[in-house]
């Protein structure tokens, strides 16, 4: 049995159906390396070899692999986290702040009696232990949280941590996991959403062009996509646009959608309701096109055009294309 570093940070990662390590791995291992020695726990239904190798490449000083039964919703993963934490006695457990990640973190926190910090946007270590940074109320406030004692369970917001860890040599072992026998739900089937577009992913994008109710229809939403393509941006939307069926919910920006913080955020036909602002007001530069000069989006826009988006946007696209050629 190998020894684990005193300052181990356990990072809970999942391998997808093809055995590939999920995307947040780089950020989580990067964040872990800032506050201690990253130890990865890779949960995999099939072979974990490729994912474990990748984890080392991304900075895991040691990697534990655990087989989770396909189709089990949540409890098998929690059993594995419990076994890994017992083995490594970490200073913190990091989990991606996704639906599955929050479920695992929540259950494990209850099982182990640990304090939990949700949706961390930064990680630090001070003389007393690990401190999680948060962006609260849509970025209007910053806060930090820490446990009264013990190792905290922290879910980490995707796209928030920029640090990346140095590659390590592979050091993998399979973990023995005792079944807790907890009642669980079943995943009866899974349908992958195939992203056919070559556009950047919304979360973590450097540029975002979003459309709102003012875009008016699913057909005219193509204009939002065209502008996004001209700028090399991801496509976002307001909840009103999602509710109206112009675009899939995964593109929703805001309090109950994705939080983005890009270099450039363009809001087209979006009024700027507080719940929308909550997901984008920390963007570096905000540009808005709205025919209502009083729309609240202009209060936070660095550059605003009061006008009809169906006139302004095609002209902007044309003008940008001319400059390029």
């Amino acid at each position: 049995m190998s020894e684990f570093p005193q300052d181990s940070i356990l990072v809970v990662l999942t391998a997808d159906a093809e055995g590939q390590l999920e995307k947040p791995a780089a950020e989580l291992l990067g964040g872990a390396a800032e506050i201690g020695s990253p130890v990865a726990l890779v949960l995999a239904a099939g072979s974990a070899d490729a994912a474990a190798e990748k984890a080392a490449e991304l900075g895991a000083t040691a990697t534990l692999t655990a087989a989770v039964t396909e189709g089990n919703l949540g409890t098998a993963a929690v059993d594995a986290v419990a076994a890994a934490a017992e083995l490594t006695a970490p200073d913190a457990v990091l989990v991606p702040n996704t639906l599955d990640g929050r479920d695992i973190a929540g259950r494990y926190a209850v099982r182990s009696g640990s304090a939990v910090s949700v949706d961390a946007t930064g990680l630090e270590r001070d003389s007393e232990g690990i401190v999680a940074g948060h962006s609260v109320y849509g970025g209007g406030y910053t806060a930090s949280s820490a446990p009264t004692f013990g190792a905290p369970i922290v879910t980490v917001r995707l796209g928030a941590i920029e640090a990346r860890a140095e590659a390590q040599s592979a050091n993998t072992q399979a973990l023995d996991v005792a079944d807790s026998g907890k009642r669980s739900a079943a995943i009866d089937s899974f349908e992958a959403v195939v992203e056919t577009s070559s556009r950047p992913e919304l979360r973590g994008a450097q540029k975002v062009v979003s459309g709102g109710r003012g875009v008016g229809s699913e057909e005219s939403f193509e204009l939002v996509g065209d502008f996004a393509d001209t700028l090399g941006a991801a496509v976002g939307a307001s909840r009103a646009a999602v509710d109206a069926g112009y675009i899939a919910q995964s593109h929703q920006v805001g309090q109950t959608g994705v939080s983005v913080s890009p270099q450039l955020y363009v809001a087209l036909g979006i009024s700027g309701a507080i719940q929308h602002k909550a997901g984008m007001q920390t963007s570096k530069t905000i540009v808005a096109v709205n025919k209502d000069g009083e729309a609240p989006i202009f209060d936070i826009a660095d550059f605003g055009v009061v006008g009809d988006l169906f006139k302004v946007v095609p002209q902007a696209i044309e003008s940008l294309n001319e400059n390029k050629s």
Partner: protein
Amino acid sequence: MIGSVWTRSTDGNQPPVDYETKVSLQLELLHEPKESSLKIAVLVKEVPDTYGDRKLNLETGLADRGASEAVLDEIGERALEVALTQKDSDGDTEVTVISMAPDTATATIRKGLAMGADNAVHVADESLAGADLGLTAEVLAAALRRGEYDLVVTGNVSTDGNGGMIPAMLAEHLDYPHVTGLSTVELADGKVAGTRGVEGGQQQVSAELPAVISITEALPEARFPNFKGIMAAKKKPFEVISLSDLDIDAEDQSVARSIMVTVAEKPPREAGEKVVDEGNGGVELAEYLTKNRLA
């Protein structure tokens, strides 16, 4: 639940059941629910209205509840709608709204009764101000244990806390399966099933009851309470309990809690340049982007 209310009143440990509650409980006893009918608990939360400006108190790091109006969280209303839809199709379904909230939240919770829930349980205790997720889950789990519910329905994330972790925490406490983030819900034959959106796709998931589910805003908006509902709500059982009723000590130092160590307000953004399109707005927009190396 009725049975347990009577036991509680004899053990002397509990607050007396008030007259109104007693009468309605006796009335309910006359119509013994069918065995098959479900007992559903819906967790609702009072939150600052997000249409106003939400404020954090910079001394305590807690929501400044005085600074904006309090409302029933929209996602909690949708969760209640899921339960009420079930009650529409099976009238014997019993729906309880449960909330952990300051004692000033009565009117907000009563809205759930006005919408059609049968009864309410309000956990109010001064020592819960600033409760972290761990304590909140412990308290809600204890409140749920008293009712032996077949199904616990919650929103996926609250508007203010934005944690989204309570449903799984409750499931662990109660040893129920958790079925979180549902955008559709079907209840039949002692099972709950639905669609669960995850990174990269959609799962079809199911669990045997009893279970905890959380729902997303893809589910329908809640019905409005009508006049009849509002009047009826005044007579529905509304139980207020404290932590001593649940045998929980909020100040127990032997349990690890998460605490806020710093909180700071960010300076608000300022409005920049605004041009009115007079036929050249698109060109001006393109120029702004190019000039700032954003094109």
